[in-house]
């Protein structure tokens, strides 16, 4: 076998998880082959142009894509060719908390240098739960993201403002919070988050603002423990002010695929070989070695064989002849319901890139909140003067209700596509194979990245000469800083000039 065809790792699919792993292996000097039958990056987080998007589901809507299925497209929207291409619709868009594992990863390693993000302009709660019958922008309340938001609010009373600020300030510090709650750490596990909020005099609108807008719960606050609610509150609070007046960042140009590409770039720079858009013929194992057969030339040619001791796949990958030593992937029992709504006007004029949360109605204890990510052309995911509202929830009825509350006029709802997502989870990895998790249905990108990093560190033996020898192990060593390189080159120029001038004397 040609040594060129022998690798240390073969990664299948350019989903975010696979791209992270490819970068980690390549960065530490492993020989990586990264393949994907698809011509597009991102796996389940890939983004679609308008024609691609409306074609999802096929004839009957049942044709699935990476765990997404049951597509229903409604609407008469027509776009010019140029506008149609200006769409980059992701089926499960994510947000990054400004203080998070993902941001740390991208900033410390320098991978983020080639990525663009926008800060959200606000997050809002719909007030339907506390009896407001209004719909549209007037019934939404801004979730405070700074003391200025609290100061400027016209609906929160003076005393409530003080309570809110006290709560913000005490809970930022876990030690202070535990001390403040006399029951201590254990008490926090048995008290519900709702009881804890009430104990701090946060009720009605403020309670909802905290439970759904700050702690970002999806279920009822009586079902979450105080410690869980507080952990999420702390994550929100620690993200405030880092980059500006919102705790959330959204990636431009269709996040998932951009992030995956950026990581693949790292892998390529460190010698990773990429074969994209070519079908896989087979993936078999013999002894300690995997052999991947890829159709590089036409179907009449024999497939090209590559070998490696380790393969990395995700549970949604379907390969002919794949012999997996692992159990078939366990699918979530319940799908997450999602929808993409296209409108021509924003819900609120003051926040075109925003998060709206519609809490469950007070009369239904089993209902869940619906989170709606409101995106605009600034993210380069849709053409000017169009807006994409991406909703996620646990029932179709909840989604319909949420969309009607936010965009009450039917004529504003230009197009809506409903679909479902089954987030596939893998069972334990077997010999020589790493089955990375598929992206979850949640909105926090950390939930898709942190488990991948932990899984890789746990399942990948340390290599001799790997960065951080003797110290805590790093997933991805920092990339060289181009500014430092520039200074070093500049210094070299100066030294060379001096050297040649002194020789001339």
């Amino acid at each position, binding site marked *: 076998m040609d040594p060129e065809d022998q690798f240390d790792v073969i990664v299948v699919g350019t989903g975010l998880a696979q791209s992270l792993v490819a970068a980690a292996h390549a960065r530490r000097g492993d020989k990586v082959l990264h393949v994907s039958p698809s011509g597009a990056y991102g796996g389940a987080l890939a983004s679609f142009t308008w024609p691609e998007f409306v074609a999802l589901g096929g004839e009957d809507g049942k044709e699935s894509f990476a765990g997404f299925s049951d597509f229903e497209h409604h609407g008469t929207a027509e776009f010019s060719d140029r506008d149609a291409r200006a769409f980059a619709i992701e089926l499960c868009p994510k947000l990054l908390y400004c203080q998070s594992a993902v941001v740390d990863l991208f900033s410390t390693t320098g991978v983020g240098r080639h990525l663009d993000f926008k800060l959200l302009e606000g997050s809002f709660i719909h007030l339907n739960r506390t009896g407001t019958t209004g719909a549209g922008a007037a019934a939404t309340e801004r979730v405070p993201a700074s*003391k*200025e938001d*609290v*100061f*400027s609010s016209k609906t929160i009373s*003076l*005393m409530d*403002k*003080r*309570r809110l*600020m*006290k709560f913000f300030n005490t809970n930022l510090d876990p030690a202070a919070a535990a001390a403040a709650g006399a029951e201590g750490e254990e008490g926090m596990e048995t008290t519900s988050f709702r009881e804890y909020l009430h104990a701090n005099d946060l009720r009605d609108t403020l309670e909802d603002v905290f439970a759904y807008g700050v702690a970002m719960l999806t279920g009822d606050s009586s079902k979450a423990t105080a410690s869980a609610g507080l952990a999420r509150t702390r994550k929100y609070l620690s993200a405030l002010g880092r980059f500006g007046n919102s705790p959330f960042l959204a990636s431009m140009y269709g996040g998932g695929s951009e992030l995956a590409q950026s990581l693949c770039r790292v892998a390529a720079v460190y010698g990773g070989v990429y074969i994209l858009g070519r079908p896989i013929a087979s993936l078999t194992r013999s002894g300690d070695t995997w052999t991947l057969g890829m159709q590089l030339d036409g179907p009449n040619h024999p497939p090209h064989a590559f070998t490696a001791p380790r393969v990395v796949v995700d549970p949604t990958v379907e390969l002919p002849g794949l012999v997996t030593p692992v159990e078939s992937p366990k699918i979530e029992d319940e799908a997450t319901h999602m929808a993409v709504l296209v409108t021509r006007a924003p819900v609120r004029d003051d926040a075109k890139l925003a998060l709206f949360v519609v809490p469950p109605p007070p009369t239904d204890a089993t209902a869940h909140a619906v989170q709606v990510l409101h995106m605009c052309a600034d993210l380069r995911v849709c053409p000017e003067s169009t807006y994409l509202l991406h909703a996620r929830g646990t029932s179709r009825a909840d989604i319909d209700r949420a969309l009607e509350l936010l965009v009450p006029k039917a004529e504003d709802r230009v197009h809506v596509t409903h679909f479902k997502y089954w987030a596939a989870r893998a069972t334990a990895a077997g010999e020589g194979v790493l089955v990375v998790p598929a992206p979850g249905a949640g909105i926090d990108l950390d939930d898709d990245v942190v488990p991948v990093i932990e899984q890789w560190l746990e399942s990948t033996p340390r290599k001799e000469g790997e960065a951080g020898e003797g110290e805590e192990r790093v997933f991805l060593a920092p990339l060289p*800083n181009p500014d*430092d390189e520039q*200074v*070093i080159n*500049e*210094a*070299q120029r*100066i*030294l060379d000039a001096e050297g040649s001038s002194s020789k001339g004397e």
Partner: protein
Amino acid sequence: MHGRKIIHMDAAAEAARKIVMLEQIKEYRVKLDEFMRLRAAKDSSETALASTTTMLSAYPDHYTAWNYRRELLPAVYSGAALAQALQSDLVWLTKTVQPANPKSYWVWNHRRWCLDTLASLLTAASKGDDVVAMWRNELLLVNKFLELDARNFHAWGYRREVIHHLESLGVFLQEAEWAFTASKIAQNFSNYSAWHYRSHLLPEWLAAKNISFDSVLDDELELLNNAFFTEPNDQSSWLYFRWIMAKAARELDADRVAAAIASQVALLDELLDMEPTCKWIMTCLVFLLTLDPARSAEKAARVQSLVSKLQEIDPFRRDYYATLLLSDA
């Protein structure tokens, strides 16, 4: 600049940076020697002017170069040509020098000098309208600076100067300025400069709109209440509050003042319940109780207990707090 992290580079980059810096110092000495030679010779040619440009492009804090430049510009140019030269200096400051050095005294001074000199030239040439347009433009520039850094006191001070220039030319902008301070306070109510500007503007704005202080007091108090209920430890709003209450006590009739004091005391008592160790609330209560001329044994007792509490939580200032005690009722 505060908030900048110290970036630790690896040894190679560190060493490289030293070499580059030494080279930069060499270049500086060459430019400086040439500049000083011309200066000592009292050279007033275009060459000298060019040397100040060279110096200032690289080292904008070199105030000797600015001084020399201000001597040279009218020496080298006059009349329309001087106006032209001043205009291009202003463009250079706006586009290049000031964005990189928004808080340099010397740069702001040079800007002022250019505008004053230009204003005289334009007035002499009977171009009064151009002068007004020039100052209006300056206001737009100041807005930009305050957008970049709402707490740049150079920009705030400059703003006042521009407004005064415009007023002396018959252009009155109090309404717009009032709205401007409100927006800056809403953006960040710890902005002491914005509150301070507001306090200077208030009497002018009232005069311009021909409305009474009485009619705006309640709105101002509501704004202030929101500020200290949101963040009682922020000094700016307390200072403005004390100033406005003192102004009310001086100018409005006694009943009105007593009522305002009473309602504010009640609010502050509620706030004190929630924040029992906040010294600003306590000192403000003492201030308000003292402001109201009525004296009683109860009041003296209340002040006494506030002062004791203050001395307990802020022992470094115990003697100062002692001076706040009321004399016998």
